[in-house]
């Protein structure tokens, strides 16, 4: 099986006596309350999803990620994983001190061993990570509203914050064990934040013909208005898998993480995360992790050329469509017919049909999946 990023799966989940000690001590420490996204980051660090990170980025690593898309030890890392607090909070904390990190419910989730506090340039950060300073970009908007001081240091997890989808919440250790038990050596990861249409199914099954197993890994967490709600994504995939997939070859788990919409940089980040889950391959489609028209359609594929040392293999898919003449889902790479034979997968059009309670053409969406979405009172994020 593929090695985790950096060679070692990070495990900073406290157990046994260390956990008891930390719980007692945490109550006496200065506390910082996290939002849901940072709480997920903490858990992803602790359980090895973000291996080799053991905490929030140091200034040196933050600079290196911005400037070179690598950690200071040269390992590929494209998205800054940072913890921002306001200046007043930061002033109240001393370097070398332990800080209790609270989840949004106010419960102690982790301990941060504070090693550094530093400022950052918002415009530079936005420009480098998202390629734009346009505040209409959701990632840029987040940076604009982010407090001004970043806290760095390793963390130790005290308490996982439960989700409504515990069955699908698997750690990299669990997915690796699961792949091993299934006898899978090669596994292709599929990142999604959408309900599946037949184009997705085509991509997943095409990739699965080359490897032992398929790992569907929806991102659960904060997304933008108009995106499908998490439970709708999961239930529509359950229905699709039940009706159209080979169970021995398919598994699904969630990734509790905020979408950053950083396009190419996020594609590399997504690949690293799937490598940690044990995937040998990852599907990268058109405009992966993009938003609006900020990124060139295939920028998220081209960026992989800069990372020959990534070890996980990207499988690139072009735009696909249904061709009436071919009678199947195809791409411009395999279909010689003209535009007049094509039916496009347009998310917004499919969405409009579903909202009106009309079944999209069976060439585009499985009727079982369409029904799941239509049965929801409100399938989209407000």
């Amino acid at each position, binding site marked *: *099986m*593929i*090695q*985790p990023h950096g*060679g*070692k*799966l990070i*495990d900073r989940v406290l157990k046994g006596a260390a956990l008891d000690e930390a719980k007692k001590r945490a109550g006496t420490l200065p506390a910082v309350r996290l939002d849901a996204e940072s709480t997920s980051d903490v858990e992803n660090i602790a359980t090895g999803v973000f291996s080799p990170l053991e905490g929030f980025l140091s200034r040196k690593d933050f600079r290196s990620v911005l400037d*070179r898309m*690598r950690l200071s030890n*040269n390992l590929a890392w494209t998205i800054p994983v940072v913890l921002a607090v306001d200046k007043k909070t930061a002033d109240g904390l001393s370097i070398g001190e332990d800080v209790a990190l609270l989840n949004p419910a106010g419960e102690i989730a982790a301990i941060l061993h504070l090693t550094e506090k530093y400022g950052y340039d918002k415009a530079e950060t936005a420009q480098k990570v998202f390629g734009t300073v346009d505040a209409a970009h959701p990632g840029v908007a987040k940076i604009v509203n982010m407090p001004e001081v970043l806290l760095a240091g390793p963390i130790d997890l005290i308490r996982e914050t439960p989700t409504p989808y515990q*069955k699908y919440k*698997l750690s990299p*250790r*669990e997915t*690796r*064990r*699961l792949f*091993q*038990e*299934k006898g899978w050596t090669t596994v292709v990861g599929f990142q999604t934040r959408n309900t599946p249409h037949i184009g997705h199914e085509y991509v997943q099954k095409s990739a699965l013909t080359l490897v032992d197993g398929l790992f569907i890994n929806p991102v659960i967490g904060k997304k933008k208005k108009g995106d499908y709600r998490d439970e709708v994504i999961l239930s529509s995939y359950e229905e699709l898998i039940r009706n159209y997939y080979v169970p021995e070859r398919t*598994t699904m788990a969630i990734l509790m993480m905020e979408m950053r919409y950083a396009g190419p940089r996020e594609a590399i980040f997504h690949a690293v995360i799937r490598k940690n889950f044990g995937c040998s391959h990852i599907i990268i489609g058109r405009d992966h992790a993009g938003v609006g028209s900020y990124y060139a359609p295939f920028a998220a594929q081209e960026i992989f050329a800069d990372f020959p040392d990534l070890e996980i293999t990207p499988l690139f898919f072009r735009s696909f469509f249904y061709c009436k003449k071919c009678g199947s889902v195809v791409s411009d790479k395999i279909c010689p017919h003209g535009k007049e034979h094509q039916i496009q997968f347009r998310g917004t059009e499919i969405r409009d049909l579903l909202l009106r309670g009309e079944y999209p053409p069976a060439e585009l969406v499985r009727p079982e999946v369409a029904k799941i979405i239509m049965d929801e009172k409100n399938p989209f994020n407000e």
Partner: protein
Amino acid sequence: MKKEFTAVSLPTSLYREIEDAVRGTADPSVANYIAKVLRESLKKGGSTEEVFSPEDEEKVKDRLKALGYID
């Protein structure tokens, strides 16, 4: 502690090929490149599984069983 080094002979043609391959990359040192590739290769040859305690491994397995992922 100071690192110690030792010399290894390579065919000159291979050396030149590596030189060409690493030119313009973040670290254009041929020696560093060779050391990195060899370390990776040694790592791959060894055990690819993380070393966790048997109790931890059991816990992972029990959870996967309880959730119905494995029998």
